[in-house]
């Protein structure tokens, strides 16, 4: 009985040790715009969120942070209508820049950074 008990514990440890997930801290950042701009990003529930940001100055920074798993899709896309404006979008994983892009006076295209959290 004692042996069986020990064995059960070992099996339990073996199987429980199998569940290992590597979570990452994801941060989306948008900055550099001098007037209103639109953003779309994925959130922790893998839902696409659309919002409008009204900056006070080019130094204003919008950010959104959440915990994600390896392999999760990351997506941040922005667009502005003011020809004098600009935009810089970034994705950071655990504080390090993963993807970034910027443009200036481009009111037609969407500025997008995306990818997946590397395994």
């Amino acid at each position, binding site marked *: 009985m004692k*042996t*069986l008990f020990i*064995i059960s514990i*070992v*099996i339990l440890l*073996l*199987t429980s*040790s*199998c569940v290992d997930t590597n979570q990452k801290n994801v941060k989306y950042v948008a900055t550099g715009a001098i007037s209103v701009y639109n953003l*779309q990003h*994925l959130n922790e529930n893998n839902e*696409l969120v659309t919002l409008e940001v009204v900056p006070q100055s080019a130094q204003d920074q919008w950010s959104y942070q959440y915990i994600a798993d390896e*392999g999760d*899709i990351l*997506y941040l*896309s922005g*667009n502005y209508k003011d020809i004098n404006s600009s935009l810089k979008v970034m994705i950071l994983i655990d504080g390090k820049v993963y993807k970034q892009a910027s443009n200036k006076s481009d009111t037609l295209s*969407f500025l*997008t950074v*995306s*990818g*997946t959290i*590397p*395994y």
Partner: protein
Amino acid sequence: MSIFKYVIVLIFAIAAHISLSQNVTLQGYIRSSSSQMPVSGAVITLKNSDFSTVSNKDGLFILRCKNDKNLTLLITHIGYVDTLVQLNNEATENILLIDLHERPLNLSEVEIFGETNNVKTYSIIKISTNQIKETNMSDLGSLMRQEPNVGGIKKGATGIDPVIRGFKYSQINVQLNDGIKIEGGCPNRMDPTAAHININDVSSISIFKGPFALKYGPGFGGLVIIETDKPKFYDIYENHISMIIGGQSNHLGYRSGIKVDGGNSTISYNLSANRNKYGNYKSGNGEVFSSSSDNYNINGVFGFKIIENHTINATAEKSWGRNVDFPTLPMDERSDDTEIYSLNYLGRNIGSKINFIKVKGYLSDVNHEMDNKNRPFSDTVVAVSKIHAVNNGAKLAVNINALKGHLELGTNIEQIRKDGNRYKSLIMQPGLPMIEENLWNNASINNTGLYAEYQKLNTKLDWIIALRTDYNTATSGPMLRLKKNGDLVYENEDTDSEHFNFSFSGGLNWHLNSKVDLTASLGKGTRSPDMTERFIILLPVGYDPYDYLGNPQLLPETNYELDLGIIRNCDFSGQFKASVFFSYVADYISAVIVPPSEVKPQTKGVLGVKNFTNIEKAYLTGFEVKHSTPQSNLWQIRVSAAYTMGINPSAIKINYENGNAIGEEIIKNDPLPEIPPLEASLWINYKFFKRKLIPEIHFRMVSTQNLVSQAYYESSTPGFNLLNFRMNYIYSNNLSLTLGINNICNTTYYEHLNRRIIGSSSPFYEPGRVIYTNLIIKL
């Protein structure tokens, strides 16, 4: 590589074992004390020495040893009480007659079936428990491809798909525990049957070549039966624990497993848990290949003896695969959750007529998820495929004594269901558009078979005959592929099909004399197309860079095969086996180009679309030769060589210029693709310290493969030589250790059947030097 090297190896092997001479020869017969019948397989050991031998089928043994005044023989056999025999000086001049007293024991299910399946007229390979426990390999396919004329298509870290005498995929019937079938989820076969079974749970693998073993299901090119541990009953309640712990350097990782089994005369159980985890590896030239994997499982087997000779057992297994790399495929395995259940009844020796009745029901359920997140093209499109594949079935077999032989009648039923989608996220586009595509649309295949097999053992001639008929139906939802904007790419609603298949086989084993057997087998094996061949929708699942389209109206393909063999057993020189085969395949399932005007490819980088179709015929032929000196000798030498070639008499090759098809030509006698080249192996071992320490070297020579398919744009592969070393130390019955070095010379090489790295023509090299160790503990 020249034939000369192979001849040298053969001469060396034969010369070496002939030179092993000893001083005194003892010979005699081992008999059962109750029946006075010969006892084969008894181990005769000279006490306090390393000399031993095994009795042959006539009970005869011949033992050469050093001359000594006090010779004592120990005779052991699983079914008999251990017996000591003190010999006098005259013993060396006379024939000894030794009687053994029977010991009652409980035979396992495998041994019971073995008793009534004695006629073997074709090539069968058995990979033993020891071979499985001593290997550093994590994948059953990699273990199988060490055998003559068995190759493996390697696409990634695990899931090597066996190729037997040039037959592959569904041409091979791979099953678990005598009847359990598993349908993999991946269209590219990253998870064939063997990939769902943990190597630590496997007790043996039997490889049957040819279409002859019809009672296990529709036979075509070969059969692989993977056996896991069975419930074992004990006279009084006992518990046992065994563990395996192994690790290796290159392809850094470990295999680990724990098993608990026990029971009494009425109930038994066997529980195990395993985890095998490996990282990337370096080839001989230092190149790193993505090949990590993480597989773990739990397994339970419960047996109940209702009354003597009537047992029921139930099995349950759950396994998980995580983050398994497949650098030659468009995707990696992200997760694989598999459940396998079975319920079995075995009744044996029922009255004087019935040898056994066997009933089995099973269910295997695979949830397989793959994605391209580690591929460069995931920068624009992230694709995730989720497949659910279910295979359930049943088997009934009755084996009776009839006309002084054994007649087995039975049926097996199999139902395969498959469904799943691919989800594409266009991550560089505004609004993050998603596309959902059907990979399988509630596809199903049902097969019901009836068989009869009769076999008879005689003094001069054993023979066997088998008949089988299968009723096979298949259906699927519409095969439909749409563009992002909803436009139609491909549609086929004619997905129903129905086949009546008939197979037969017959074989003879002629005992030419006490040492030589000649065998001949002739068979016709018919199989209906599989899920991929029937229902795949525009995915690159073949050897060549094309999107493939399934064809629900394919005809079954039929293999007519003739095998001829010779087996020579000699107490002095060991066993020599040779076999040749010739296969004529009618309605061979291949693929032809579909004009772009009919359907355009949907995968980036492919050359076009191919549609599965039947071609008139194909031929395969080849041979296997194997020689091994007696295992009872201190020295043991084994040598093997094997070769297969396959021909498509009239293949169509499409010519391209700048990626555009500019015409086609007929290639006469084009070699079939994915056939491994000529290869030979030599093993030499010596048993030290009363057979406790056994070092072994293995020299493997693989020839260049120049017989490649022009129609498939198959590349030729250079030959290579490999040197491996392994040392087993058996400290006691409770503890053994294996140390080994594979690819000692750190050779840079790849097997002909290894796929190319995706998006390139770079070979998927095998690991360079690997140092490994396995520790086995039994309590």
